Protein backbone atom coordinates (compact mmCIF):
# COMPACT_ATOMS: atom_id res chain seq x y z
CA UNK A 1 0.00 0.00 0.00
CA UNK A 2 2.77 2.44 0.87
CA UNK A 3 6.11 1.76 -0.73
CA UNK A 4 7.93 5.02 -0.09
CA UNK A 5 8.21 6.75 3.28
CA UNK A 6 9.92 10.12 3.50
CA UNK A 7 11.10 10.92 7.01
CA UNK A 8 11.98 14.37 8.27
CA UNK A 9 15.29 14.35 10.08
CA UNK A 10 13.58 15.88 13.13
CA UNK A 11 11.26 12.91 13.63
CA UNK A 12 13.46 10.06 12.45
CA UNK A 13 13.83 8.85 16.02
CA UNK A 14 10.31 9.65 17.20
CA UNK A 15 8.58 6.60 18.66
CA UNK A 16 5.63 6.91 16.30
CA UNK A 17 7.89 7.19 13.26
CA UNK A 18 9.78 4.08 14.25
CA UNK A 19 6.54 2.15 14.78
CA UNK A 20 5.16 3.15 11.40
CA UNK A 21 8.40 2.43 9.57
CA UNK A 22 8.53 -0.98 11.23
CA UNK A 23 5.04 -1.67 9.93
CA UNK A 24 6.10 -1.16 6.30
CA UNK A 25 9.07 -3.46 6.12
CA UNK A 26 9.41 -3.32 2.34
CA UNK A 27 9.03 0.42 1.95
CA UNK A 28 11.97 2.50 0.84
CA UNK A 29 12.87 5.03 3.50
CA UNK A 30 14.09 8.39 2.23
CA UNK A 31 15.38 11.04 4.62
CA UNK A 32 14.54 14.68 4.07
CA UNK A 33 15.22 17.87 6.01
CA UNK A 34 11.69 19.26 5.86
CA UNK A 35 8.52 17.73 4.50
CA UNK A 36 8.01 20.78 2.30
CA UNK A 37 10.99 19.71 0.18
CA UNK A 38 8.88 16.81 -1.02
CA UNK A 39 5.34 18.01 -0.51
CA UNK A 40 5.42 21.63 -1.61
CA UNK A 41 7.73 21.63 -4.59
CA UNK A 42 6.45 22.76 -7.96
CA UNK A 43 5.77 20.65 -11.04
CA UNK A 44 4.08 17.84 -9.15
CA UNK A 45 1.03 16.16 -10.58
CA UNK A 46 -1.61 15.32 -7.98
CA UNK A 47 -3.45 13.03 -10.39
CA UNK A 48 -0.39 10.91 -11.12
CA UNK A 49 0.73 10.79 -7.50
CA UNK A 50 -2.73 9.71 -6.38
CA UNK A 51 -2.07 6.36 -8.07
CA UNK A 52 0.67 5.57 -5.56
CA UNK A 53 1.02 8.14 -2.80
CA UNK A 54 3.99 8.05 -0.48
CA UNK A 55 3.85 8.67 3.24
CA UNK A 56 5.75 11.60 4.69
CA UNK A 57 6.49 11.58 8.42
CA UNK A 58 6.97 15.07 9.72
CA UNK A 59 6.74 17.37 12.69
CA UNK A 60 4.16 20.14 12.83
CA UNK A 61 6.02 23.04 14.32
CA UNK A 62 3.31 25.67 14.72
CA UNK A 63 -0.27 26.57 13.78
CA UNK A 64 -1.38 23.19 14.98
CA UNK A 65 -4.82 24.22 16.25
CA UNK A 66 -6.60 26.91 14.28
CA UNK A 67 -9.91 28.69 14.88
CA UNK A 68 -12.72 28.17 12.42
CA UNK A 69 -14.05 31.49 11.16
CA UNK A 70 -15.72 33.65 13.82
CA UNK A 71 -19.47 33.32 14.19
CA UNK A 72 -19.59 29.81 12.83
CA UNK A 73 -19.72 26.45 14.51
CA UNK A 74 -22.25 23.96 15.76
CA UNK A 75 -24.69 25.73 18.09
CA UNK A 76 -22.48 28.82 18.09
CA UNK A 77 -19.81 27.20 20.26
CA UNK A 78 -16.16 28.09 19.82
CA UNK A 79 -14.64 25.95 17.12
CA UNK A 80 -11.14 24.92 16.10
CA UNK A 81 -9.71 22.52 13.60
CA UNK A 82 -6.49 20.61 13.59
CA UNK A 83 -4.83 18.38 11.02
CA UNK A 84 -2.59 15.62 12.22
CA UNK A 85 -2.50 14.56 8.59
CA UNK A 86 -2.64 16.16 5.15
CA UNK A 87 -4.35 14.34 2.29
CA UNK A 88 -6.64 11.40 2.19
CA UNK A 89 -6.69 7.75 1.27
CA UNK A 90 -9.76 8.36 -0.84
CA UNK A 91 -10.07 10.15 -4.16
CA UNK A 92 -13.33 12.09 -4.13
CA UNK A 93 -13.55 14.21 -7.23
CA UNK A 94 -15.34 17.02 -5.38
CA UNK A 95 -12.69 17.25 -2.65
CA UNK A 96 -10.85 20.55 -2.32
CA UNK A 97 -7.61 18.85 -1.22
CA UNK A 98 -6.79 17.95 -4.84
CA UNK A 99 -6.85 21.64 -5.69
CA UNK A 100 -5.21 22.90 -2.51
CA UNK A 101 -2.12 20.69 -2.35
CA UNK A 102 0.49 20.20 -5.04
CA UNK A 103 1.18 16.68 -3.87
CA UNK A 104 -1.05 13.69 -3.19
CA UNK A 105 1.41 12.19 -0.73
CA UNK A 106 0.13 11.69 2.79
CA UNK A 107 1.82 13.90 5.37
CA UNK A 108 1.52 12.57 8.90
CA UNK A 109 2.57 14.89 11.70
CA UNK A 110 3.74 12.44 14.32
CA UNK A 111 4.08 14.88 17.22
CA UNK A 112 0.59 14.21 18.54
CA UNK A 113 1.74 15.25 22.00
CA UNK A 114 2.18 18.84 20.78
CA UNK A 115 -1.30 18.86 19.20
CA UNK A 116 -2.82 17.55 22.42
CA UNK A 117 -0.93 20.12 24.52
CA UNK A 118 -2.30 22.89 22.28
CA UNK A 119 -5.84 21.49 22.54
CA UNK A 120 -5.54 21.36 26.34
CA UNK A 121 -4.31 24.95 26.38
CA UNK A 122 -7.24 26.15 24.25
CA UNK A 123 -9.73 24.35 26.47
CA UNK A 124 -8.07 25.77 29.56
CA UNK A 125 -8.71 29.31 28.35
CA UNK A 126 -12.49 29.02 28.75
CA UNK A 127 -15.19 27.19 30.64
CA UNK A 128 -17.44 27.18 27.59
CA UNK A 129 -17.74 24.20 25.30
CA UNK A 130 -15.12 24.13 22.57
CA UNK A 131 -15.46 22.12 19.35
CA UNK A 132 -12.50 20.59 17.58
CA UNK A 133 -12.80 19.29 14.03
CA UNK A 134 -10.23 16.73 12.96
CA UNK A 135 -11.27 15.79 9.45
CA UNK A 136 -10.54 18.96 7.52
CA UNK A 137 -7.35 18.11 5.64
CA UNK A 138 -7.73 14.34 5.82
CA UNK A 139 -10.21 11.60 6.67
CA UNK A 140 -10.08 11.18 10.45
CA UNK A 141 -10.24 7.39 10.46
CA UNK A 142 -9.17 6.06 7.07
CA UNK A 143 -5.52 5.53 8.01
CA UNK A 144 -6.15 4.93 11.71
CA UNK A 145 -4.62 1.43 11.72
CA UNK A 146 -1.37 3.09 10.63
CA UNK A 147 -1.55 6.39 12.47
CA UNK A 148 -3.09 5.30 15.77
CA UNK A 149 -4.85 8.66 15.80
CA UNK A 150 -7.96 7.51 17.67
CA UNK A 151 -6.02 5.67 20.34
CA UNK A 152 -4.07 8.79 21.25
CA UNK A 153 -6.54 11.61 20.72
CA UNK A 154 -9.87 10.23 21.96
CA UNK A 155 -8.58 9.40 25.47
CA UNK A 156 -6.98 12.84 25.59
CA UNK A 157 -10.32 14.46 24.74
CA UNK A 158 -12.10 12.31 27.31
CA UNK A 159 -10.08 14.06 30.00
CA UNK A 160 -11.17 17.52 28.90
CA UNK A 161 -14.51 18.52 30.39
CA UNK A 162 -15.40 21.21 27.86
CA UNK A 163 -13.96 19.71 24.66
CA UNK A 164 -16.00 18.24 21.82
CA UNK A 165 -14.34 16.35 19.01
CA UNK A 166 -15.76 15.69 15.55
CA UNK A 167 -14.18 12.77 13.73
CA UNK A 168 -15.13 13.34 10.11
CA UNK A 169 -14.89 10.24 7.96
CA UNK A 170 -16.11 8.03 5.17
CA UNK A 171 -14.14 5.13 6.55
CA UNK A 172 -15.12 1.85 8.12
CA UNK A 173 -11.90 1.72 10.16
CA UNK A 174 -13.70 1.80 13.49
CA UNK A 175 -11.92 -0.99 15.35
CA UNK A 176 -10.17 1.42 17.72
CA UNK A 177 -13.42 3.16 18.57
CA UNK A 178 -15.28 -0.10 19.08
CA UNK A 179 -12.52 -1.22 21.40
CA UNK A 180 -12.81 1.73 23.76
CA UNK A 181 -15.49 3.21 25.98
CA UNK A 182 -17.85 5.49 24.06
CA UNK A 183 -17.49 9.14 24.81
CA UNK A 184 -20.51 11.43 24.65
CA UNK A 185 -18.50 14.41 23.44
CA UNK A 186 -16.77 12.63 20.58
CA UNK A 187 -19.02 12.67 17.52
CA UNK A 188 -18.32 10.21 14.71
CA UNK A 189 -19.51 12.22 11.72
CA UNK A 190 -19.88 10.24 8.50
CA UNK A 191 -20.07 11.90 5.12
CA UNK A 192 -22.82 10.11 3.24
CA UNK A 193 -23.94 10.24 -0.37
CA UNK A 194 -26.33 8.15 -2.46
CA UNK A 195 -24.60 5.08 -3.88
CA UNK A 196 -24.73 6.47 -7.47
CA UNK A 197 -22.75 9.50 -6.27
CA UNK A 198 -20.37 7.25 -4.35
CA UNK A 199 -19.80 5.20 -7.49
CA UNK A 200 -19.37 8.24 -9.72
CA UNK A 201 -17.38 10.66 -7.60
CA UNK A 202 -16.15 9.09 -4.36
CA UNK A 203 -13.43 6.84 -5.74
CA UNK A 204 -11.86 4.23 -3.43
CA UNK A 205 -14.31 4.93 -0.59
CA UNK A 206 -16.39 2.31 1.20
CA UNK A 207 -19.82 2.08 -0.35
CA UNK A 208 -22.88 3.49 1.35
CA UNK A 209 -23.94 0.18 2.80
CA UNK A 210 -20.55 -0.37 4.46
CA UNK A 211 -20.59 3.11 5.97
CA UNK A 212 -24.09 2.59 7.36
CA UNK A 213 -23.04 -0.72 8.85
CA UNK A 214 -20.06 0.96 10.56
CA UNK A 215 -22.36 3.67 11.89
CA UNK A 216 -24.78 1.09 13.25
CA UNK A 217 -21.97 -0.65 15.09
CA UNK A 218 -20.74 2.60 16.57
CA UNK A 219 -24.24 3.56 17.63
CA UNK A 220 -24.68 0.16 19.26
CA UNK A 221 -21.57 0.93 21.30
CA UNK A 222 -22.95 4.28 22.37
CA UNK A 223 -20.96 6.65 20.16
CA UNK A 224 -22.89 9.75 19.06
CA UNK A 225 -23.17 9.96 15.30
CA UNK A 226 -23.11 12.85 12.91
CA UNK A 227 -24.31 12.70 9.32
CA UNK A 228 -22.83 15.04 6.78
CA UNK A 229 -25.00 15.32 3.69
CA UNK A 230 -22.29 17.36 2.13
CA UNK A 231 -21.78 17.95 -0.68
CA UNK A 232 -25.19 17.45 -2.20
CA UNK A 233 -24.52 16.79 -5.88
CA UNK A 234 -26.89 17.84 -8.64
CA UNK A 235 -27.42 14.42 -10.13
CA UNK A 236 -29.97 13.36 -12.73
CA UNK A 237 -33.23 12.44 -11.02
CA UNK A 238 -32.03 14.20 -7.85
CA UNK A 239 -35.23 13.92 -5.82
CA UNK A 240 -35.73 10.22 -6.42
CA UNK A 241 -32.08 9.30 -5.80
CA UNK A 242 -31.64 11.49 -2.72
CA UNK A 243 -35.11 10.60 -1.46
CA UNK A 244 -34.41 6.89 -1.55
CA UNK A 245 -31.00 7.56 -0.05
CA UNK A 246 -32.28 9.50 2.96
CA UNK A 247 -35.00 6.95 3.54
CA UNK A 248 -32.39 4.18 3.45
CA UNK A 249 -30.14 6.01 5.90
CA UNK A 250 -32.92 6.37 8.46
CA UNK A 251 -34.20 2.87 7.94
CA UNK A 252 -30.78 1.72 9.10
CA UNK A 253 -30.04 4.32 11.78
CA UNK A 254 -32.10 5.30 14.78
CA UNK A 255 -32.64 9.06 14.64
CA UNK A 256 -32.09 9.30 18.39
CA UNK A 257 -28.45 8.29 17.91
CA UNK A 258 -27.82 11.19 15.56
CA UNK A 259 -26.16 14.10 17.29
CA UNK A 260 -26.35 16.37 14.26
CA UNK A 261 -26.85 16.40 10.52
CA UNK A 262 -25.41 18.99 8.20
CA UNK A 263 -26.43 19.80 4.66
CA UNK A 264 -24.38 21.62 2.03
CA UNK A 265 -24.27 21.77 -1.73
CA UNK A 266 -21.17 21.23 -3.85
CA UNK A 267 -18.89 24.26 -3.85
CA UNK A 268 -15.22 24.84 -4.51
CA UNK A 269 -12.86 27.79 -4.10
CA UNK A 270 -12.29 29.12 -7.61
CA UNK A 271 -8.51 28.81 -7.49
CA UNK A 272 -8.80 25.18 -6.45
CA UNK A 273 -11.38 24.52 -9.17
CA UNK A 274 -8.95 25.84 -11.78
CA UNK A 275 -6.22 23.52 -10.53
CA UNK A 276 -8.57 20.53 -10.46
CA UNK A 277 -9.82 21.28 -13.95
CA UNK A 278 -6.24 21.16 -15.21
CA UNK A 279 -5.82 17.78 -13.50
CA UNK A 280 -9.14 16.31 -14.65
CA UNK A 281 -10.29 18.20 -17.77
CA UNK A 282 -12.55 15.30 -18.70
CA UNK A 283 -14.46 15.43 -15.39
CA UNK A 284 -18.11 16.42 -15.95
CA UNK A 285 -18.46 17.76 -12.39
CA UNK A 286 -16.28 20.77 -13.29
CA UNK A 287 -17.38 21.16 -16.90
CA UNK A 288 -20.75 22.75 -16.30
CA UNK A 289 -21.68 26.36 -15.80
CA UNK A 290 -21.18 27.40 -12.20
CA UNK A 291 -21.68 30.70 -10.45
CA UNK A 292 -18.79 32.38 -8.67
CA UNK A 293 -19.54 33.96 -5.31
CA UNK A 294 -16.91 35.36 -2.94
CA UNK A 295 -14.17 33.44 -4.68
CA UNK A 296 -16.06 30.17 -4.62
CA UNK A 297 -17.76 28.26 -7.44
CA UNK A 298 -21.12 26.69 -6.86
CA UNK A 299 -24.58 26.11 -8.20
CA UNK A 300 -26.90 29.04 -8.82
CA UNK A 301 -28.79 30.51 -5.84
CA UNK A 302 -32.02 29.02 -7.15
CA UNK A 303 -30.51 25.57 -7.53
CA UNK A 304 -28.96 25.69 -4.07
CA UNK A 305 -32.24 26.86 -2.61
CA UNK A 306 -34.17 24.07 -4.28
CA UNK A 307 -31.68 21.36 -3.31
CA UNK A 308 -31.32 22.47 0.31
CA UNK A 309 -34.99 23.15 0.89
CA UNK A 310 -35.96 19.80 -0.54
CA UNK A 311 -33.33 17.98 1.51
CA UNK A 312 -34.26 19.75 4.75
CA UNK A 313 -37.89 18.84 4.24
CA UNK A 314 -36.99 15.21 3.71
CA UNK A 315 -34.65 15.17 6.71
CA UNK A 316 -37.36 16.82 8.77
CA UNK A 317 -39.27 13.56 8.57
CA UNK A 318 -36.56 11.91 10.63
CA UNK A 319 -34.75 14.53 12.70
CA UNK A 320 -35.85 17.54 14.76
CA UNK A 321 -34.84 20.89 13.21
CA UNK A 322 -32.50 21.75 16.08
CA UNK A 323 -30.22 18.93 15.02
CA UNK A 324 -30.01 19.97 11.38
CA UNK A 325 -27.50 22.54 10.21
CA UNK A 326 -26.91 24.06 6.80
CA UNK A 327 -23.39 24.47 5.51
CA UNK A 328 -22.99 27.95 4.06
CA UNK A 329 -21.20 28.36 0.74
CA UNK A 330 -17.79 29.76 1.57
CA UNK A 331 -14.48 30.48 -0.08
CA UNK A 332 -12.74 28.66 2.76
CA UNK A 333 -13.68 25.18 1.63
CA UNK A 334 -15.91 23.05 3.76
CA UNK A 335 -15.41 24.09 7.35
CA UNK A 336 -17.74 27.01 7.81
CA UNK A 337 -21.29 26.44 8.75
CA UNK A 338 -24.26 28.34 10.05
CA UNK A 339 -27.31 27.13 11.69
CA UNK A 340 -30.56 27.37 9.83
CA UNK A 341 -33.83 25.80 10.65
CA UNK A 342 -35.82 24.31 7.83
CA UNK A 343 -38.79 26.42 6.95
Amino acid at each position, binding site marked *: MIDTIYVEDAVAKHRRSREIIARFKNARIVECRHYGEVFNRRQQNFRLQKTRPALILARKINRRVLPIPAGYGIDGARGYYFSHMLNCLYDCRYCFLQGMFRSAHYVLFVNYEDFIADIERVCGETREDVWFFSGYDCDSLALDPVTGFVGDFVPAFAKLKNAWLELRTKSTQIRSLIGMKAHSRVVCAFSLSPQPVVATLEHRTPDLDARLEAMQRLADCGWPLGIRFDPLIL*IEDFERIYGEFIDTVFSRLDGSTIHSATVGTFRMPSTFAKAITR*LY*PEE*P*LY*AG*RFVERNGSLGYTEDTIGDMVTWTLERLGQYLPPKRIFVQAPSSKGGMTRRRERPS
Partner: protein
Amino acid sequence: MPAVSTVNIVTALSSEAAPIRNALGLRRVSTEPFEIYEGAGLRLIISGVGTLLSAAAVGFLGGRDGASGGDIWINCGIAGHRNLPLGTPVLAEKVTSPPAGRSYYPTILFNAPCRTGTVSTYDHPVTAYPCDACCDMEAAGFVTAAVALTHGELVHVLKIVSDNKASDLHMINGEQVRALIRGGIVCLTALVERVRTVAALLPPPPDQRRLAGILQRWRFTHSQSEQLRRLQQRYAALTNGAGRFGSDLNDCRSASEVLAHLKAFVDSLPLLVRAPE
Protein backbone atom coordinates in the same frame (compact mmCIF):
# COMPACT_ATOMS: atom_id res chain seq x y z
CA MET B 1 -7.06 7.99 -25.69
CA PRO B 2 -4.00 9.11 -23.72
CA ALA B 3 -1.22 11.13 -25.31
CA VAL B 4 1.87 9.17 -26.28
CA SER B 5 4.81 10.63 -24.38
CA THR B 6 8.18 11.10 -26.01
CA VAL B 7 11.02 9.62 -23.99
CA ASN B 8 14.09 11.86 -23.79
CA ILE B 9 17.31 10.25 -22.59
CA VAL B 10 20.25 12.40 -21.58
CA THR B 11 23.75 10.98 -21.25
CA ALA B 12 26.96 12.85 -20.54
CA LEU B 13 29.34 10.75 -22.65
CA SER B 14 29.18 9.27 -26.12
CA SER B 15 30.40 5.98 -24.61
CA GLU B 16 27.29 6.01 -22.38
CA ALA B 17 25.07 6.80 -25.34
CA ALA B 18 26.43 4.17 -27.75
CA PRO B 19 24.93 1.04 -26.14
CA ILE B 20 21.62 2.83 -25.65
CA ARG B 21 21.27 3.98 -29.25
CA ASN B 22 22.28 0.55 -30.47
CA ALA B 23 19.80 -1.23 -28.22
CA LEU B 24 16.95 1.13 -28.99
CA GLY B 25 17.67 1.50 -32.70
CA LEU B 26 18.18 5.26 -32.67
CA ARG B 27 19.73 7.15 -35.56
CA ARG B 28 21.68 10.39 -35.48
CA VAL B 29 19.76 13.50 -36.49
CA SER B 30 22.06 16.26 -35.27
CA THR B 31 25.67 16.84 -34.28
CA GLU B 32 25.79 20.51 -33.26
CA PRO B 33 25.66 21.88 -30.63
CA PHE B 34 24.74 18.48 -29.18
CA GLU B 35 24.68 15.05 -30.74
CA ILE B 36 21.05 13.93 -30.93
CA TYR B 37 19.67 10.51 -31.88
CA GLU B 38 16.04 9.62 -32.53
CA GLY B 39 13.84 6.56 -32.87
CA ALA B 40 10.17 5.72 -32.43
CA GLY B 41 9.01 7.90 -29.54
CA LEU B 42 12.57 8.19 -28.26
CA ARG B 43 15.27 10.84 -28.34
CA LEU B 44 18.78 10.71 -26.95
CA ILE B 45 21.12 13.65 -26.44
CA ILE B 46 24.78 13.66 -25.42
CA SER B 47 25.27 16.59 -23.09
CA GLY B 48 28.91 16.51 -22.12
CA VAL B 49 30.13 16.39 -18.53
CA GLY B 50 28.74 18.55 -15.73
CA THR B 51 25.48 19.99 -14.42
CA LEU B 52 25.54 23.02 -16.66
CA LEU B 53 25.88 21.05 -19.87
CA SER B 54 23.31 18.53 -18.73
CA ALA B 55 20.79 21.29 -18.03
CA ALA B 56 21.67 22.99 -21.32
CA ALA B 57 21.11 19.76 -23.22
CA VAL B 58 17.69 19.32 -21.63
CA GLY B 59 16.79 22.88 -22.56
CA PHE B 60 18.09 22.47 -26.10
CA LEU B 61 16.28 19.20 -26.73
CA GLY B 62 13.09 20.48 -25.15
CA GLY B 63 13.19 23.66 -27.17
CA ARG B 64 14.24 22.05 -30.41
CA ASP B 65 11.00 20.29 -31.25
CA GLY B 66 8.73 21.87 -28.68
CA ALA B 67 8.59 19.94 -25.42
CA SER B 68 5.28 18.45 -24.43
CA GLY B 69 4.16 18.73 -20.82
CA GLY B 70 3.80 14.96 -20.79
CA ASP B 71 7.27 14.06 -22.01
CA ILE B 72 9.49 11.65 -20.11
CA TRP B 73 13.05 12.63 -19.21
CA ILE B 74 15.69 10.15 -18.07
CA ASN B 75 19.31 10.82 -17.20
CA CYS B 76 21.31 7.65 -17.66
CA GLY B 77 25.00 7.32 -16.99
CA ILE B 78 27.78 6.03 -14.83
CA ALA B 79 28.43 6.99 -11.21
CA GLY B 80 30.74 6.05 -8.39
CA HIS B 81 29.63 4.48 -5.16
CA ARG B 82 31.52 3.68 -2.00
CA ASN B 83 30.79 -0.02 -1.88
CA LEU B 84 28.22 -1.14 -4.46
CA PRO B 85 29.59 -3.65 -6.99
CA LEU B 86 30.49 -2.37 -10.45
CA GLY B 87 27.58 -2.62 -12.87
CA THR B 88 24.90 -2.17 -10.19
CA PRO B 89 22.02 -0.08 -11.54
CA VAL B 90 20.58 2.48 -9.10
CA LEU B 91 17.39 4.45 -9.67
CA ALA B 92 17.50 7.79 -7.85
CA GLU B 93 15.01 8.26 -5.02
CA LYS B 94 16.82 11.43 -4.00
CA VAL B 95 19.16 13.70 -5.93
CA THR B 96 21.33 16.00 -3.89
CA SER B 97 23.65 18.77 -4.84
CA PRO B 98 26.08 19.13 -1.94
CA PRO B 99 27.70 22.24 -3.45
CA ALA B 100 24.31 23.94 -3.72
CA GLY B 101 22.82 22.39 -0.59
CA ARG B 102 19.67 21.36 -2.42
CA SER B 103 17.80 18.07 -2.75
CA TYR B 104 15.25 16.79 -5.22
CA TYR B 105 13.07 13.72 -4.72
CA PRO B 106 12.03 11.85 -7.88
CA THR B 107 8.57 10.37 -7.39
CA ILE B 108 8.66 6.66 -8.19
CA LEU B 109 5.10 5.63 -9.01
CA PHE B 110 5.94 2.14 -10.28
CA ASN B 111 7.82 -0.93 -9.18
CA ALA B 112 11.43 0.13 -9.47
CA PRO B 113 13.31 -2.08 -11.97
CA CYS B 114 16.39 -2.04 -9.74
CA ARG B 115 17.55 -0.89 -6.35
CA THR B 116 16.91 2.75 -5.45
CA GLY B 117 19.18 5.18 -3.67
CA THR B 118 20.57 8.68 -3.43
CA VAL B 119 22.55 10.31 -6.22
CA SER B 120 24.83 13.15 -5.14
CA THR B 121 26.04 15.50 -7.83
CA TYR B 122 29.43 17.16 -7.50
CA ASP B 123 31.15 19.67 -9.72
CA HIS B 124 34.34 17.59 -9.87
CA PRO B 125 35.13 13.87 -10.06
CA VAL B 126 34.77 12.28 -6.63
CA THR B 127 36.93 9.39 -5.54
CA ALA B 128 36.56 9.68 -1.76
CA TYR B 129 32.86 8.60 -1.91
CA PRO B 130 31.93 10.78 1.07
CA CYS B 131 28.47 9.33 1.64
CA ASP B 132 26.34 6.27 0.98
CA ALA B 133 25.25 7.58 -2.41
CA CYS B 134 26.04 7.36 -6.06
CA CYS B 135 28.37 10.22 -6.98
CA ASP B 136 27.97 11.80 -10.38
CA MET B 137 28.39 15.16 -12.10
CA GLU B 138 25.09 15.69 -13.95
CA ALA B 139 21.94 14.54 -12.16
CA ALA B 140 21.22 17.71 -10.17
CA GLY B 141 21.53 19.91 -13.25
CA PHE B 142 19.47 17.49 -15.28
CA VAL B 143 16.52 17.32 -12.86
CA THR B 144 16.48 21.06 -12.28
CA ALA B 145 16.05 21.65 -16.01
CA ALA B 146 13.80 18.68 -16.78
CA VAL B 147 11.18 19.35 -14.10
CA ALA B 148 10.69 22.77 -15.63
CA LEU B 149 9.50 21.06 -18.83
CA THR B 150 7.32 18.22 -17.60
CA HIS B 151 5.65 16.66 -14.57
CA GLY B 152 8.12 15.77 -11.85
CA GLU B 153 6.79 12.20 -11.82
CA LEU B 154 8.16 11.71 -15.35
CA VAL B 155 11.74 12.75 -14.55
CA HIS B 156 14.13 10.02 -13.46
CA VAL B 157 17.82 9.37 -12.99
CA LEU B 158 19.35 5.94 -13.55
CA LYS B 159 22.99 5.39 -12.68
CA ILE B 160 25.20 2.37 -13.27
CA VAL B 161 27.98 1.98 -10.74
CA SER B 162 31.29 2.34 -12.55
CA ASP B 163 33.76 2.77 -9.70
CA ASN B 164 34.04 2.20 -5.99
CA LYS B 165 36.64 2.13 -3.28
CA ALA B 166 38.06 -1.08 -4.66
CA SER B 167 38.07 0.04 -8.30
CA ASP B 168 39.26 3.54 -8.93
CA LEU B 169 37.49 5.97 -11.26
CA HIS B 170 40.72 6.68 -13.14
CA MET B 171 40.94 3.07 -14.28
CA ILE B 172 37.79 3.33 -16.40
CA ASN B 173 38.04 3.63 -20.17
CA GLY B 174 35.45 4.09 -22.88
CA GLU B 175 35.07 0.40 -23.60
CA GLN B 176 34.39 -0.33 -19.94
CA VAL B 177 31.76 2.42 -19.85
CA ARG B 178 30.04 0.90 -22.89
CA ALA B 179 30.08 -2.51 -21.23
CA LEU B 180 28.65 -1.15 -17.98
CA ILE B 181 25.83 0.68 -19.72
CA ARG B 182 25.16 -2.34 -21.94
CA GLY B 183 24.68 -4.34 -18.75
CA GLY B 184 22.11 -1.79 -17.56
CA ILE B 185 20.06 -1.69 -20.77
CA VAL B 186 17.47 -4.18 -19.50
CA CYS B 187 16.95 -1.96 -16.49
CA LEU B 188 16.76 1.18 -18.63
CA THR B 189 14.19 -0.28 -21.02
CA ALA B 190 12.10 -1.52 -18.09
CA LEU B 191 12.27 1.96 -16.58
CA VAL B 192 11.15 3.53 -19.86
CA GLU B 193 8.15 1.21 -20.11
CA ARG B 194 7.12 1.75 -16.50
CA VAL B 195 7.34 5.53 -16.70
CA ARG B 196 5.32 5.32 -19.91
CA THR B 197 2.53 3.58 -18.01
CA VAL B 198 2.55 6.48 -15.55
CA ALA B 199 2.47 9.07 -18.33
CA ALA B 200 -0.47 7.24 -19.90
CA LEU B 201 -2.54 8.25 -16.87
CA LEU B 202 -2.38 11.90 -17.86
CA PRO B 203 -5.65 13.30 -19.20
CA PRO B 204 -6.41 12.76 -22.87
CA PRO B 205 -5.40 15.61 -25.16
CA PRO B 206 -8.08 17.65 -26.94
CA ASP B 207 -9.20 16.50 -30.37
CA GLN B 208 -6.49 18.29 -32.32
CA ARG B 209 -8.03 17.68 -35.74
CA ARG B 210 -11.25 19.49 -34.97
CA LEU B 211 -9.43 22.24 -33.09
CA ALA B 212 -6.97 22.67 -35.95
CA GLY B 213 -9.82 23.22 -38.36
CA ILE B 214 -11.25 26.00 -36.22
CA LEU B 215 -7.87 27.53 -35.43
CA GLN B 216 -6.99 27.68 -39.12
CA ARG B 217 -10.24 29.22 -40.23
CA TRP B 218 -10.26 32.15 -37.79
CA ARG B 219 -7.41 34.13 -36.25
CA PHE B 220 -7.04 33.25 -32.57
CA THR B 221 -4.68 34.83 -30.06
CA HIS B 222 -2.86 32.44 -27.75
CA SER B 223 -5.28 33.24 -24.94
CA GLN B 224 -8.26 32.66 -27.23
CA SER B 225 -6.90 29.33 -28.43
CA GLU B 226 -6.57 28.24 -24.80
CA GLN B 227 -10.19 29.26 -24.19
CA LEU B 228 -11.19 27.24 -27.25
CA ARG B 229 -9.37 24.16 -25.93
CA ARG B 230 -11.11 24.42 -22.55
CA LEU B 231 -14.50 24.82 -24.23
CA GLN B 232 -13.85 21.68 -26.21
CA GLN B 233 -12.89 19.82 -23.04
CA ARG B 234 -16.04 21.00 -21.28
CA TYR B 235 -18.14 20.01 -24.26
CA ALA B 236 -16.59 16.54 -24.38
CA ALA B 237 -17.05 16.06 -20.63
CA LEU B 238 -20.69 17.12 -20.66
CA THR B 239 -21.65 15.17 -23.76
CA ASN B 240 -19.52 12.12 -23.01
CA GLY B 241 -17.81 12.62 -26.35
CA ALA B 242 -21.01 12.45 -28.36
CA GLY B 243 -21.78 15.05 -31.02
CA ARG B 244 -19.40 17.22 -33.00
CA PHE B 245 -17.82 20.23 -31.35
CA GLY B 246 -18.15 23.45 -33.31
CA SER B 247 -20.19 22.09 -36.18
CA ASP B 248 -22.37 25.22 -36.55
CA LEU B 249 -19.90 28.09 -36.76
CA ASN B 250 -20.54 29.19 -40.33
CA ASP B 251 -22.10 32.50 -39.31
CA CYS B 252 -19.18 33.51 -37.10
CA ARG B 253 -16.96 36.27 -38.50
CA SER B 254 -14.18 36.29 -35.92
CA ALA B 255 -12.53 34.23 -33.21
CA SER B 256 -14.39 36.25 -30.59
CA GLU B 257 -17.70 35.33 -32.16
CA VAL B 258 -16.67 31.68 -32.36
CA LEU B 259 -15.81 31.67 -28.65
CA ALA B 260 -18.99 33.49 -27.68
CA HIS B 261 -21.10 31.09 -29.72
CA LEU B 262 -19.41 27.99 -28.34
CA LYS B 263 -19.47 29.27 -24.76
CA ALA B 264 -23.18 29.97 -24.94
CA PHE B 265 -23.76 26.50 -26.27
CA VAL B 266 -21.58 24.70 -23.70
CA ASP B 267 -23.05 26.79 -20.85
CA SER B 268 -26.49 25.67 -21.95
CA LEU B 269 -25.64 22.00 -21.53
CA PRO B 270 -27.23 20.53 -18.41
CA LEU B 271 -25.06 20.66 -15.29
CA LEU B 272 -25.71 17.18 -14.11
CA VAL B 273 -23.61 14.34 -12.90
CA ARG B 274 -24.88 11.14 -14.41
CA ALA B 275 -25.12 8.04 -12.33
CA PRO B 276 -23.38 4.98 -13.79
CA GLU B 277 -25.64 2.64 -15.75
